[in-house]
């Protein structure tokens, strides 16, 4: 069993592309749920909107990557409006129903045969990210090493840009939440009627929150497809939304650094478990195989089972998440 290899993989995963993409999407969800109390169960829909904002602009209209970047935000904002306008005046549960349905609708429509000329159907869209990688100061095909970390040049470039965006957006959200605007959002999370009685237009604030978090989600979707260099409908499935929720819960909702740390923990566990299972010594492997067939598929599933177990333990022993405060959580029950 090659512990050196497992360690290298695990440490690289701690700062890898998945961590950045999911952390950024979770920052958006944190704006929604952590600060405003909006139950968005379709964050992946915003990621898809951002990804197709880019993909369709380049693939269908033949416009440049940089126009695509603009459309990433346009698509994200339009989706927020479509979801928010009819639901945000209603009871909180309606938003969760509509978001989960909308995110699946986007995926299914995007992969359909009818939409193939626009979205590339199930095969998707590629060859749009070249202008991004053309800017790279790193050799795209070479491996780069720094201490225990090892990445391909193209990933190094994506990671440099991704982490800068992630930290900048996190700091921006942190500043906003300390402002009177953020105070109004938190007040709406605590008691919408109290905020309304004190002159706050709750509907408008919830819409702004949905848009901000949605735009951040769209940006995360864009980073994801730039890294994969393709936009494929089926990568935007509901499991991603639930993963983003798990990440936010691990970190603790309503805390600035929760998305980043939650995402690092989540992906570290996933990659560690996967690589350990693949690297088991022959004896252990045979023993285990008498009980479960360690195919790639099963290893993939086992990772999630173990993460699920971890979440159960978290719920039992630290329900407030890494950064949350137990004292604060207890206030809900008063």
């Amino acid at each position, binding site marked *: 069993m090659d512990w050196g290899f497992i360690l290298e993989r695990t440490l690289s995963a701690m700062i890898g592309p998945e961590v950045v993409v999911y952390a950024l999407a979770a920052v958006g969800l944190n704006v929604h749920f952590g600060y405003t109390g909006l139950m968005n169960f379709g964050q992946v829909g915003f990621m898809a909107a951002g990804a197709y904002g880019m993909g369709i602009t380049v693939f269908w209209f033949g416009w440049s990557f940089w126009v695509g970047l603009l459309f990433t935000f346009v698509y994200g904002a339009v989706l927020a409006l479509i979801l928010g306008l009819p639901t945000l005046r209603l009871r909180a549960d309606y938003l969760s129903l509509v978001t989960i349905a909308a995110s699946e609708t986007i995926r299914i429509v995007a992969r359909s045969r009818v939409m193939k000329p626009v979205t590339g159907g199930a095969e998707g869209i590629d060859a749009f990210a070249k202008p991004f990688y053309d800017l790279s100061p790193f050799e795209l095909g070479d491996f780069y090493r720094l201490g225990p970390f090892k990445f391909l040049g193209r990933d190094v470039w994506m990671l440099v840009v991704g982490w800068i965006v992630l930290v900048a957006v996190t700091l921006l959200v942190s500043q906003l939440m300390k*402002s009177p*605007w953020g*105070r109004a959002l*938190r*007040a709406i999370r*605590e008691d919408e009627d109290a905020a309304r009685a004190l002159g706050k*237009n*709750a509907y408008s604030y919830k819409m*702004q929150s949905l848009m901000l978090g949605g735009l951040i989600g769209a940006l995360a979707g864009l980073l994801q497809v730039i890294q994969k260099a393709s936009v494929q409908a089926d990568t935007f499935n509901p499991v991603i939304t639930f993963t983003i929720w798990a990440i936010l819960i691990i970190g603790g909702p309503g805390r600035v650094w929760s998305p980043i740390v939650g995402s690092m923990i989540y992906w570290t566990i996933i990659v560690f478990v996967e690589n350990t299972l693949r690297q088991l010594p022959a004896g252990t492997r045979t023993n285990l195989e008498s009980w479960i067939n360690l195919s790639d598929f099963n290893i993939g599933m086992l990772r999630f089972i173990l993460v699920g177990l971890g979440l159960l333990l978290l719920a039992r022993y630290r329900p407030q998440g890494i950064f949350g405060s137990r004292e604060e959580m207890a*206030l809900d029950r008063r």
Partner: protein
Amino acid sequence: MTAADAVAIRATGVVKTFGGLKAVDVERIVIPKGRITALIGPNGAGKTTFFNLLSGFDKVDSGTIELDGEDITGMPPHRLAAKGMVRTFQLTKVLSKMSTLENLKLGALGQRGENFFVALFRGLWADQEAAIERRADALLERFNLGHMRDEFAGTMSGGQRKLLELARAMMTDPQVIMLDEPMAGVNPALAQSLLEPIKSLRDEGRTVVFVEHNMDVVREIADRVIVMSEGRVIAEGTPEEIRTNRAVVDAYLGTHRGTESDGGGAQ
């Protein structure tokens, strides 16, 4: 109410039903400006529902509500607050996971930093924020909540929550303030000390409407009393006139059924 009194709120023909139940059915209620008006009546009389209608939290089935002569029927609460009309809740609504200070600061109207784009630049709202904080601190002292300043509001006792709501409503600098049982659950000594701030609201020219079950409190601070029962106004007048009103006594004893009462007081 003399003819010279200006009108703050006028409700005409306001009806609100829940299923088959007529929770509110008032022909005419007039709240004089710059006075303290008490709204009393047995449980279930429709006082809170009437508050909800006035403050935009519920929609009237029919009828009109005017504020300073302007028709405000169906206007949402946040716009009413901007017009200087604020209310508190019978079941307190504190923002549990925010500090007491933050609860108060939220109440200030016209905050520049509440605009998303302005919020991005601290320099544009920091001065105003500091002024708001000074005002909040002064109110916290006035309501004996200074020691709770940085605690989560969710840790407060029931009585403290009532005080917090009142202080928070004052942060909006309201022209009309509507208090739904502000003294309920507040210990008598403290309740007594609440009377002065409420009276001083009137002395500053503001209009106060409050719901209260304690007749001693009503007698002590109210200029006018409106008595509701089963959704209707059954009497109106000064506290003294109400005390001796037959229909009111009947209503409280539960024998009142009709609507024939003329209200007894000066009309």
